[in-house]
């Protein structure tokens, strides 16, 4: 009786579920984090203020608090969604300030002359950000962004523990608790499947970093 090999189908479906959370989190936190970073460098003071407040408040809250806020706070406000949607949303919101700040380090590394030249040919603020500054900032930010994203992939397990269900973490919990398998091999199986997400992610990031490097 091998706890992992006997339940490979369960592990596999849990893996796909976790991968789904990770991919939604990836897309969502990159989009939201980029938007907040754009706010923080915007010429409009109220947007800058909002961006700074967002980063300050959310970056300093534990992930579990953000999760509970979504799951229990929002229903009180009359907003009801599935735990899956709440869980993924909380993960996106929680990760966005870290994405924002990693990206902002990249924005700061783009020389002021690049943005000046963009403005000088008549690009608007949004255009110069989108066409000139952010494409360069992203490339420079790949190492810190990579760390943020891999941390988020692992945080997907916390979202799973919180009751999204059927993800890798829940599968492991179910096998060890309900079906009485030894915890150690079960959790080792969970860890191996998580590595199947994080290791390729790291490799893709390293490849991306080489591919898109800009010579200045």
């Amino acid at each position, binding site marked *: 009786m091998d706890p992992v090999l006997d339940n490979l189908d369960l592990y596999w479906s849990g893996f796909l579920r976790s991968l789904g959370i990770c991919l939604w989190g990836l897309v969502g936190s990159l989009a939201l984090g980029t938007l907040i970073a754009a706010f923080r460098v915007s010429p409009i003071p109220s947007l800058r203020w909002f961006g700074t407040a967002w980063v300050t408040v959310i970056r300093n809250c534990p992930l579990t608090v953000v999760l509970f806020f979504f799951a229990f706070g929002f229903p009180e406000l009359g907003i009801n969604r599935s735990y899956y949607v709440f869980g993924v949303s909380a993960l996106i919101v929680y990760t966005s300030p870290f994405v924002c700040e990693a990206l902002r380090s990249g924005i700061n590394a783009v020389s002021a002359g690049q943005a000046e030249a963009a403005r*000088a040919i*008549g690009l608007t603020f949004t255009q110069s950000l989108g066409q000139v500054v952010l494409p360069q900032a992203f490339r420079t930010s790949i190492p810190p962004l990579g760390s943020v994203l891999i941390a988020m992939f692992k945080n997907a397990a916390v979202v799973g523990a919180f009751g999204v269900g059927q993800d890798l973490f829940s599968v492991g919990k179910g096998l060890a608790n309900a079906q009485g398998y030894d915890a150690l091999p079960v959790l080792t199986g969970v860890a191996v499947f998580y590595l199947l997400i994080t290791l390729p992610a790291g490799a893709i990031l390293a490849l991306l970093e080489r591919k898109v490097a*800009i010579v200045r």
Partner: protein
Amino acid sequence: MTSAGETRAAIGQPLVVLDHVDKWFGQLHVLRDINLTVNRGEVVVVIGPSGSGKSTLCRAINRLETIDKGTISLDGQPLPQEGKELARLRAEVGMVFQSFNLFAHKTILENVTLGPIKVRKQKQADAERRAKELLDRVGVAHQAAKYPAQLSGGQQQRVAIARALAMEPKVMLFDEPTSALDPEMIAEVLDVMVELAEGGMTMIVVTHEMGFAREAANRVVFMADGQVVEENDPETFFTRPQSDRAKDFLGKILKH
């Protein structure tokens, strides 16, 4: 150049007008009551010791620097404060920087077509055709597929000129365009600038290249300590400077 004839015909009309312009950097009064009119088709060279405010003056004309008092107008319109209006104005003003500032992640061709496509909404094929003509004119057509870092400084600066020209600006600003270049590259950039000047382009050039000033300028503006100290035609300015400050400056730079 098709616009050369028209520009020449309209010479004498004020195009860039600075009226009682003041600017402070904190306590430092960098521009003091600047009054300057540049006419269409005119080439004005701004010279002066470093820290005299000449770069700030140049950058204020397309509002890369804000001013604290006075007005700057282009073609009769005062510079807008911010936003889309300002972007539209900047599209009419070409700018060439000391450090080239080519977009590092874009090819030479993309550098030249970005503005025409995004701002002028030209079709990509049209923008590319025009860009190739301009790159050919500045002598770097064969480098179109390369990235800026693969080019020499002189080549990068000529691309920067082509990038500005692609917007078909009413006036070109040059902020010390040759100061970051090796001597043999200075000539290739100045040749392009002289050709532009002869073609009737309105130009405001901040430079230390006295040879260019003598050859191409209609007028020399000498600045010191944030003020326009003296304005004259190049011949008069270089041979018979009026102010002590200009005599002192010329004495220092022409000695070697």
